[in-house]
């Protein structure tokens, strides 16, 4: 057995080390989060189309459409470029984000009417993204370093078995005091997240649906459902046209390419 390294155990589907070693709940939570991150490494770059449907309590709907490109960075958070297509009054607006494992992300906004690239404050974590139930911090790059973790329990989730973790945002500007995350034990994909607001009350629940595997490795949800339990509003975020390994480079994610984005 000594010859079996942790990675070999993982490769054969044996995730025993995580459950058998004597770990504190914090260590175990972090290990699960790191494993989930490690399993998705090497995606290089991706593009996709996103559609959001916002619903208020009366069921009135409003639509958002965006295209997104992202680049995996080896020693830093990911880079992303989002181009807005709908509603049409903001079409052509584009957002460039350099996420960082520590500290605030760097963000630039391109305003097509003025042809202006503007550095914006990224400290607005908890604000609604495009008027939806997703906050900026919900859609930003989910780096392990942005949370402290604690393993809570194992629990059935749908027809799968899940790890249930508690994670607390490191950033004081976060709109959440904690999140509870359900991660399935077979593929380490998030299945559900409960968000608790600054008053420690359950604010929102996010569920992940229609996972598909891309490039033989990378699982991506086809649909996210975010429900606000306090207002009765909800947002469906659907992804389509996922394409991995497009050969994007850092030069496709700078201010010049932001101003070129169409």
């Amino acid at each position: 057995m000594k010859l079996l390294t942790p990675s070999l155990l993982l490769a054969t589907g044996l995730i025993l080390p995580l459950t058998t070693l004597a770990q504190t709940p914090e260590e175990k939570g972090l290990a699960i989060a790191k494993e989930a991150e490690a399993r998705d490494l090497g995606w290089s770059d991706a593009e996709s189309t996103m559609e959001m449907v916002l619903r208020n309590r009366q069921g009135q709907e409003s639509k958002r459409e965006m295209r997104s490109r992202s680049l995996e960075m080896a020693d830093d958070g990911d880079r992303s470029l989002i181009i807005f297509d709908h509603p049409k009054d903001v079409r052509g607006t584009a957002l460039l984000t350099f996420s960082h494992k520590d500290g605030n992300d760097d963000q630039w906004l391109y305003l097509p009417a003025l042809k202006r690239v503007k550095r914006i404050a990224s400290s607005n974590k908890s604000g609604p993204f495009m008027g939806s139930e997703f906050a900026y911090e919900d859609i930003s790059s989910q780096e392990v370093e942005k949370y402290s973790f604690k393993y809570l329990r194992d629990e059935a989730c749908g027809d799968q078995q899940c790890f249930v973790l508690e994670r607390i945002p490191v950033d004081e500007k976060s709109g959440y005091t904690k999140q509870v995350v359900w991660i399935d034990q077979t593929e380490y994909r998030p299945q559900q997240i409960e968000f608790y607001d600054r008053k420690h009350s359950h604010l929102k629940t996010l569920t992940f649906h229609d996972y598909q595997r891309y490039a033989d490795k990378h699982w991506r949800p086809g649909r996210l459902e975010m429900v606000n339990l306090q207002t009765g509003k909800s947002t469906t975020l659907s992804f389509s046209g996922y394409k991995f390994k497009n050969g994007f480079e850092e030069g496709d994610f700078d201010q010049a390419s932001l101003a070129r984005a169409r």
Partner: protein
Amino acid sequence: MRTLKWATALLCVGLGTQAHAAIYQRLDTELSVEARAFPQERRFSEQSNFGLSLALGSEWYGEWAKGQHSVTVLPFVRYDSLDQQRSHFDLRELNWQGLFGALEVRAGLSRVFWGKTELLHLVDIINQDDALENIDGEDKLGQPLLRLSWTGAIGNLQAYALPYFRERRFAGHEGRLRAPLPIDPDRVRYESADEDKHLGYALRLQSYVGAFDFGLAWFSGTQRAPQLIPIDFVDTPQGPQPTALAPFYGLMDQASLDAQYTVGAWLLKLESVWREQALLQVAPEQPARIEPLRYAAATAGFEFTQYGLFDSSVDAGWLVEYLWDERGTDTDASFQNDLFLATRLAANDVNDSTLLGGLVIDLDHGSRFISLEAGRRLTGQSKLSLEARLFNSISARDANFYAIRQDDYLQLEYFYYF
């Protein structure tokens, strides 16, 4: 029309080389209906108190060879019920752009923005203002240009050749927000013997280091804002009085620095310029002569945003900018010692409701300029915006604002996008 020919020729070269490749294209059109009401009494009998206006802008964008080449065409047209001069057409974009590794080449008519601050765009110099659209200096005419833009470790380096100059257009004698005397564009004067064909150029480095964004630039070319020279004097009991104005465009060199430091919810901003430009001295019975005028101007301030005001999703931004111009009082400088205070509210609701209210105080003369801009989305394809501009206790020494002191207006604009 020479501009058009020149741009079209370049466009054909760009298109001809790659015409067979697969094209990604989009056509985005914006139609707007604008109503303006002027509650204050008109200064000239030919002016009116209410105007309706219709504008159409349509952008076609096509790219091929995986985005290595692209063409943008954006014609814009406005019809105005009040002022014939404000009914105008412009090709805001008609250009080809090619990507060659780290080098981006753009040729044709285009618009470019430089700068950081919100009230006054001191550094922004490539394009002529479309002064007929709005007095805020944010609408621009398409500028014929050749631009090389290279991105490397030090940032983005841009070089511009500006082969043709666009004259500023002014409100006609029936329009509000006009100069005190009719401006005669046929009597335009240039310092350069090449007139509007004087070749201008510009260089710019824009980059960032951590939270610090900056731009360093040099511009040499025709001054964008003309000096208005009194002409056609007639004898009156008070002595000779001019009856018209002629625009004079001198040559100008401008060195500029714009910078922003972003820390938490604070944006600290600076724009500064040093200029050497031509000042035309006209005195009765004497030949006009050109004198060099060297001066500096700057604007500095901050924007601080409070996110999620009172546990709601409303953001409140607070803007303060101080504006200074070495030329001081009694010159063309409108913002020589002025303070700009504003608040920006964003509801972050489904309709993206926003409100920007600002006040500019001239600390020398006490003149006040108040501006309110509110916007709200109606549907996924339409939007409503409201704008109010008020000129309050304007001093006669604030020449630019003094001319339009009775032209307070309230504007409602409906946009439809397809």
